[in-house]
């Protein structure tokens, strides 16, 4: 098995998600693993790649690859897969990685299995473990041809620093015209202000079910009463109801407080991956079929505008007594 792991980077660091996938790939018995970094001035990442399990690292270094846009990366990977006879390409999920993986699948007419929680060798075959339908069923999936492409759910594997060093091979970059026609004109990297929600023992999170930004006072009050912090879904952050720094989920923070109270949150997979390891999960949602109830310890089918303020009062009363 000749495996290539897409190593995503940000601010001179390889991402933890990519390193986790790399360590996973390196642990296969017959692993012939290489990493690939694509960007501008990225050769220095070789040390890190080696340490986490890549004996070999392909480096595509080009000023045109500086912005983290997917299509030029598809060009590089497609060429690499063809030239090096790679049979398996692995990605840790991210906004960038998903677009690269799907573009590559189309380019090579290769099978893509996404949202995998694990990958195992079974009877000489590679089998992906894919939680589906709100994770109510785990599907064993595979590939009918090579190369196989897999996109892993965020946080599936922990990086293992086994030590080692990567032999670097530069790869030439030939880009398609259409791949370079989209342009990054600005990147606003938001610094979070205030205490980080990652350390909060209690998080009260609000979603679109709150109905409007003004209703975030409901979750703020409850969070205050419980001595916790406020979290939010991407839907409300993108709508400008609450700051980006409080977003929980795949593109936001991964949190594991002792208590997570979800108010008016549907519980989409991308939200779930950021909070599923919380100790106790309580959800309040008026839709009895909301996916969030599938992974809550206590689910309340009710209106947040009724339940949340009352709960705040009760918590306050209890603390006062």
């Amino acid at each position, binding site marked *: 098995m000749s495996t290539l792991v897409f190593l995503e980077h940000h601010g001179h660091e390889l991402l933890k998600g990519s390193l986790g996938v790399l360590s996973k790939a390196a642990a296969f018995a017959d692993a012939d693993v290489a990493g690939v970094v694509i960007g501008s001035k990225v050769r220095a990442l070789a040390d890190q790649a080696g340490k986490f399990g890549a004996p070999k690292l392909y480096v595509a270094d080009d000023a045109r690859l500086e912005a983290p846009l997917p299509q030029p990366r598809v060009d590089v990977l497609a060429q690499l897969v063809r030239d090096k006879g790679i049979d398996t390409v692995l990605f840790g999920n991210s906004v*960038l990685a998903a677009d690269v993986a*799907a573009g590559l699948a189309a380019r090579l007419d290769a099978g893509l299995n996404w949202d995998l929680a694990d990958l195992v060798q079974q009877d000489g075959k590679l089998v992906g473990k894919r939680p589906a339908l709100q994770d109510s069923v785990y599907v064993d999936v595979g590939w009918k041809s090579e190369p196989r492409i897999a996109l892993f759910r965020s946080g599936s594997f922990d990086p293992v620093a086994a030590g080692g060093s990567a032999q670097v091979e530069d790869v030439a970059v030939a880009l398609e015209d259409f791949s370079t026609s989209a342009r990054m004109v*600005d990147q606003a990297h938001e610094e979070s202000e205030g205490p980080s929600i990652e350390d909060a023992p209690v998080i009260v999170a609000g979603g679109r079910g709150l109905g409007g930004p003004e209703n975030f006072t409901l979750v703020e009050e409850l969070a205050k009463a419980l001595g916790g912090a406020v979290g939010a879904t*991407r839907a409300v952050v993108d709508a400008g109801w609450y700051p980006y720094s409080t977003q929980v989920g795949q593109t936001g923070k991964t949190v594991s407080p002792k208590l997570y109270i979800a108010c008016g949150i549907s519980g989409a997979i991308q939200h779930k991956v950021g909070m599923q390891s919380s100790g106790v999960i309580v959800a309040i949602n008026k839709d009895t079929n909301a996916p969030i109830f599938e992974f809550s310890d206590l689910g*309340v089918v009710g209106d947040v505008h009724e339940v949340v303020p009352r709960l705040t009062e009760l*918590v306050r009363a209890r603390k006062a007594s």
Partner: protein
Amino acid sequence: MKIAVCVKQVPEGNSRIDPETKRLDRSGEGALNAFDANAVEEALRLKDATGEGEVVLVSMGPPKAQDALRKALAMGADRAVLVTDEAAAGSDLVATSYTLAKALEREGADVILFGQQAGDSDGAVLWAAVADRLRLPVVSQAAEITQADGKLTVKRQTEFGYDVIEAPLPAVVAVSDAINEPRYPSLKGIMGAKSKAQATLSLSDLGVEGDRAGEQGSRTEVYGLNDPPARSESKKIEDNGNAAQAILDFLAEKRLV
């Protein structure tokens, strides 16, 4: 400006996988994928902003997907194209993107919009595959789109903050579910939808060879279904006015207050 919107019909309510075929059971009622309503809304907004043009729905699915398309027509889309063919059932990403790209090629739209994800597959990947086949620029997770001078400017969120990306037309864009508030179809819209064109295309109409669609055209397969890892007990209650107290008692029992 001509805008094509890729929309999908998904099973209504809680879905299940058929243990026989190992495919999603699509026999029950269907609905317009909720995330696609945002794409339709954005298409209507873009069309209004330019003052002229057309919004075409493009979908692949069983014949009854027409109902879901009618809902999007009632919102204001101008016409719909449904690719429906027995031989397309069971298509994976590679096969679906190939067929959809063929259908989209015929339309030659300036902008091709996608929803954020299909509620049944949670893929959030299809647009990138379709864009590669069409050799067009792609931007995903769009939270804001503006257009001027033959190009789109898209604001979108990633793991690190916000990107602003510019793409020349024609371009493929997948929208986030926060980009807008989809309108409800008006009574007039619902009545009007009945007389809008809803074309049906087969794979051969599109020139899609049999071995590029359905299970034959797919490069992934399903081996089996398993139960998810066991979870600790969970309780669900209806609020009859005392849910807050029930939550408090629960938290007290867990020593969380």
